[in-house]
């Protein structure tokens, strides 16, 4: 029995491609919640530690590419998502691969 291993180099390349798609949240700025004046009220402030917001996993054994993205609303969610799909398909075509592509809009910021 063999164990399928994700294609990390292609995954990394596609992640970079997806991150650079207009409307995709490249880095996400988390917020922090702090209590105010000893009450249950909270005030939230931004932290200066952004985290990656897009992830792509390529599974050659299953012939699948799965992308999870956060997006802003600079365009409609459908437009941004379709652009991500198109970019992934074009990149796969350049490398001579034909895989099933699934893009999940996981969250929205902005």
């Amino acid at each position: 029995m063999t164990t399928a291993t994700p294609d990390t180099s292609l995954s990394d390349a596609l992640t970079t491609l997806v991150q650079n798609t207009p409307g995709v949240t490249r880095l996400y700025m988390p917020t922090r919640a702090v209590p105010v004046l000893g009450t249950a009220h909270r005030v939230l402030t931004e932290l200066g530690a952004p985290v990656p917001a897009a992830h792509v996993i390529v599974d050659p054994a299953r012939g699948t590419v799965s992308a999870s993205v956060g997006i802003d609303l600079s365009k409609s969610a459908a437009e941004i998502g379709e652009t991500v799909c198109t970019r992934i398909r074009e990149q796969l075509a350049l490398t001579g691969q034909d895989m099933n592509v699934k893009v999940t809009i996981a969250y929205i910021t902005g």
Partner: protein
Amino acid sequence: MSTSPDPIPDPAARHLLDSDVPASAVFALEPEDLDGYTVDDLSDYLDAGMTPRDPVIDISPSCQIALAALSRLKALTATFLEEEAALEEPRDDTWVTSLLENISLESRTGRQIPYRVAALHTELVITEGAVRGLIRAAGDMVHGILIGRSALIGDVTVLDEPVTVEVDATIIWRNNIPNAAEQLRDAIQDTLARNTDLTVAGITVTISDVHITPMENS
């Protein structure tokens, strides 16, 4: 993460149990673990400056949705908190607490909602949690109203299947309830039409609470 739903603790959601609602819709209201975390866990993590780094939180869409929702809540509540802080009277924290609790609910990734995609072998979906974030953001644009719970009723995983949106909201005292509810419905309808392929058959807005400032109380 539990495999069976716990009893729903959210009083605002209890009426769903009494009506003819699909089980899947009720399950969608189950308090979400945020990938094993609570909102308080996230607050503690962030208060600690996110050190040591927790990769689960950092890449968790549901945690990120919760953080985004908390951020929006900050902007909306800041004014009210400042007003109340200026009055040295006991504060009613319940409405803020209620909103925070619902952020946990809506942050659940939930079901996957498809788009129509022309390309072969290509699937594009948006998570139910992200759509709830859209609904909340739409509500944030309506003056004098704050969205609490929201729910998508119906099989959202099937294109063209009619779904209804149910929203509970808090209104700030002295705002016209029918007008605010109508504006909220319009804002939700617009954002769902623009950003999803959902077939929205109806939007029900329930004003479940009125927030009265201490000044109004006196």
